């Protein structure tokens, strides 16, 4: 399939401005005749639904949580980047653009990233106006801090709960629209399929999670804001409900899936402690501003950390990357932690390293440290029973974010006309590795400032014949969804959904996690297929379809992860290079850094569904770098 990125002509700094002028407008009286479905109510979904309703569109918004305020964006801790240059330290739109393209290891689309950097500035204004209580200086101005992969302080934050505050801002804007009748909200409702009529996305099929009722909703356009797929690993920092179902089922209806192998493993998470663990907890990257990462120099050093003098500690990030130190990007920090532990230098010989605040407490005093990180320290103590003011944190990388997602053009539209994809659910801006504090920026950029324009451009031009929920095309999709649910309930096997999910997660973590190899990926594909077959024969889903049934919800999601996992491995296998978070053991520099192959792999891999178990078809969107010079990333 030929992929048309629809990037406007002209110099990069003028593309978005020019595009905004060239896009078709819908006159205010006509906007209310157009209906838009938004799936998901996180930063991207809530901001998009609220902003489109403000413009006058009839918006319906769906989320599986009991309230739109609970979307997983709420858990983002550290901050949001913006090229405000308030600290006067040399930041600019161009520098944020440059850092993001470089941070993504030259696997993102330049024009999208530039637009993101431009819009970043407006986002902070918008959020401050909504009453987001960002951290401030004593004079009343906004405060900034630095984050991984950048040498300027451009991150805005609200203690360690930036995602919560930004989401509540968007949720409140959304709530206002719900109250005014601009948005019809459907909580506890899960999207299970999309409806494509005459090649256009015209609606969705959903399940009411309380009554179990299956119903269809039609509209002029559909916007997916359904987040990422880190839960393919079972253990991740994502909320338990995060899933690939919405994007995967859209993929099965014709939307191409881009770069599924780009998954971010976050370096600072609380290590796995036991077999019954249900999820991993992130400790914000902002901690690396003041915390120092180290392991004992001697293997098998069993002394308590306080008894190990500085000379016998290896502050390996500071040693290997003197200019960025502990603030190297996430992919680099994660890989080095893994290397240390694989070499037997992890704490107690296991998979954990220290993140130490001893020097910060000495330099700043416990009060300042508490002000910056108090809630994170408290959370750490609750989970581990250890006090990080006294003893160093123990951390290890964990799956956190997925750069891959449905392929979209510059207008954020997928390969199915009318189906738009925003936030983490699309692939567009982070390349092969996302920099810290950029996810919140992208979610809100897409929702507040991109989709409200591009959706108008679509509905103004598309021919949209009337569609009704009683049309045969719609009934057919509805019947397929109902059939699938019946099938899951009828298997009546012996193993729980979670047991299968855990098994799949373990395999993906081992073979398609922080490092990948041809042999490992080939064996993983076979194993995933075999596991999937067993799942469909031996899973036991308790309860009924016409009821609140959390086992059934999980079963549907895990069934999709089983299909998706195969594509992820396929993509990782095909990409014979290392770039960003995708690390193929066969392709590395002598000092163990990712070695790209720009001649062969400077493209976006976009996969087309060809049937379960059938080889997916690959289309390539070539990546051209006219502004950022291609180079090996160096943070030394």
């Amino acid at each position: 399939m030929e992929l048309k990125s629809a990037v406007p002509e002209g110099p990069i700094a003028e593309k978005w401005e020019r595009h905004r002028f060239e896009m078709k407008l819908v006159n205010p009286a006509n906007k209310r005749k157009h209906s838009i479905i938004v799936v998901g109510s996180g930063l991207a979904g809530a901001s998009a639904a609220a902003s489109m309703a403000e413009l006058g569109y009839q918006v319906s918004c769906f989320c599986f949580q009991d309230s739109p305020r609970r979307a997983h964006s709420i858990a983002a801790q550290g901050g949001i980047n913006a090229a405000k240059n308030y600290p006067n330290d040399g930041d600019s739109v161009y520098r944020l653009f440059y850092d993001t393209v470089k941070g993504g290891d030259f696997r993102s689309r330049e024009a999208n990233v530039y637009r993101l950097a431009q819009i970043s500035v407006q986002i902070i204004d918008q959020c401050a106006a909504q009453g987001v209580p960002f951290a401030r200086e004593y004079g009343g101005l906004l405060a900034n801090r630095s984050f991984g992969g950048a040498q300027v302080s451009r991150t805005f934050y609200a203690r360690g709960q930036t995602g919560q505050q930004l989401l509540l801002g968007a949720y409140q804007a959304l709530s206002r629209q719900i109250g005014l009748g601009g948005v019809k909200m459907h909580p506890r409702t899960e999207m299970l399929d999309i409806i494509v009529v005459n090649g256009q996305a015209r609606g969705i099929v959903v399940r009411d999670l309380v009554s179990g009722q299956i119903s269809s909703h039609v509209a002029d356009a559909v916007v997916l804001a359904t987040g990422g797929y880190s839960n393919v690993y079972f253990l991740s920092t994502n909320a338990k409900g995060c899933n690939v179902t919405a994007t995967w089922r859209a993929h099965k209806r014709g939307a191409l899936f881009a770069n599924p192998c780009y998954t971010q493993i976050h370096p600072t998470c609380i290590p796995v402690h036991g077999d019954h663990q249900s999820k991993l907890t992130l400790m914000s990257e902002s901690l690396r501003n003041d915390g120092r990462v180290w392991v004992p120099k001697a293997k098998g050093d069993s002394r308590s950390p306080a008894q190990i003098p500085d000379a016998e500690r290896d502050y390996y990030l500071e040693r290997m990357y003197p200019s960025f130190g502990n603030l190297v990007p996430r992919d680099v920090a994660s890989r080095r932690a893994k290397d240390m532990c694989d070499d037997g230098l992890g704490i107690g010989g296991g998979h954990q390293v220290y993140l130490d605040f001893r020097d910060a407490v000495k330099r700043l005093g416990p009060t300042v440290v508490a002000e910056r990180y108090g809630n994170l320290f408290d959370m750490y103590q609750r989970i581990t029973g250890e006090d990080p003011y006294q003893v160093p944190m123990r951390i290890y990388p964990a799956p956190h974010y997925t750069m891959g997602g449905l392929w979209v053009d510059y207008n954020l539209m997928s390969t199915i006309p009318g189906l738009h994809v925003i936030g983490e659910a699309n692939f567009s801006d982070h390349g092969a590795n996302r920099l810290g504090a950029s996810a919140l920026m992208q979610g809100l950029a897409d929702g507040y400032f991109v989709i409200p324009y591009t959706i108008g451009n679509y509905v103004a031009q598309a021919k949209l014949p009337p569609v009704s929920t009683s049309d045969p095309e719609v009934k057919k999709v509805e019947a397929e969804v109902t059939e699938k649910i019946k099938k899951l309930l009828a298997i009546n096997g012996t193993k729980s959904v979670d047991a299968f999910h855990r098994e799949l997660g373990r395999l993906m973590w081992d073979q398609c996690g922080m490092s990948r190899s041809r042999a490992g990926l080939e064996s993983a594909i076979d194993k995933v297929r075999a596991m999937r077959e067993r799942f469909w024969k031996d899973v036991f889903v308790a309860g009924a379809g016409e009821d609140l049934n959390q086992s059934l919800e999980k079963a549907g999601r895990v069934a999709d992860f089983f299909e998706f996992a195969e594509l992820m491995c396929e993509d990782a296998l095909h990409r014979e290079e290392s770039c960003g978070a995708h690390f193929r053991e066969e392709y590395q520099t002598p000092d163990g850094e990712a070695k790209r192959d720009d001649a062969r792999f400077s493209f976006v891999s976009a996969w087309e569904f060809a049937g379960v178990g059938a080889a997916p078809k690959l289309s390539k969107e070539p990546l051209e770098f006219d502004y950022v010079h291609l180079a090996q990333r160096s943070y030394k």
Partner: protein
Amino acid sequence: MKLVLHVWRQAGPQAKGDFVRYEVPDASPDISFLELLDLLNESLIARRMEPIAFDHDCREGICGSCGVVINGRPHGPQRHTTACQLHLRSFQDGQEIWVEPWRAKAFPLVKDLVVDRSAFDRVIQSGGFITARTGSAPDANAVLVPKRDSDLAMDAAQCIGCGACVAACPNASATLFVAAKVSHLGLLPQGQPERYSRVVKMVETMDAEGFGACTNHGECMAACPKGISVDFIARLNRDYLKATLAPPPEGAGWSGAA
């Protein structure tokens, strides 16, 4: 460790509910309370019984999905801790634990430990926001906010909307929830234009949803996993009194300052 659980089971809003006794013989003290429920559910599934329904999502204490009453206390015995962050090391080997849903008229039961908290959403919809249309904002540093006000607003804004305050209150009042939002927005210069109309609408909606009145028990603050202070209730009352007893004359706006 071994634990004996008495869990509230109720098939639906109309069904009769009761406590059901379960034993978990081999739980690690390092798992969370929700992981204990996972473990129990796995054993129920193995016996082909229906697992216990409970709301949960982020499991890091921020989404506000989870919430059960554990031995009579919302979110259990540990202060400032949601059920998902409560670990079994807070319990003793052999202990009996009673687990119930939030009980409040405004939070009707859905199933087992799951309740419907959409009343909170409707309270926010009625006025818990600052009207700031996308695209119309001035430069973020154009409006200065004293750090003290901003910090205090953040203290209030930390509310996760879990509903523990309602579950803890003998009157099932949502006053702490409403006070937190009214204070968060009312402390900021951006929130001044709607400050007094906001408080009136939110309080009216709270009453209409069937939440009780505040009689200053303070149980809400003790149960709040984010430690939100009842001081904010004083602030709510002040704004509400001003808005209802001394509204500005017709045609004049609120001055903003309290």
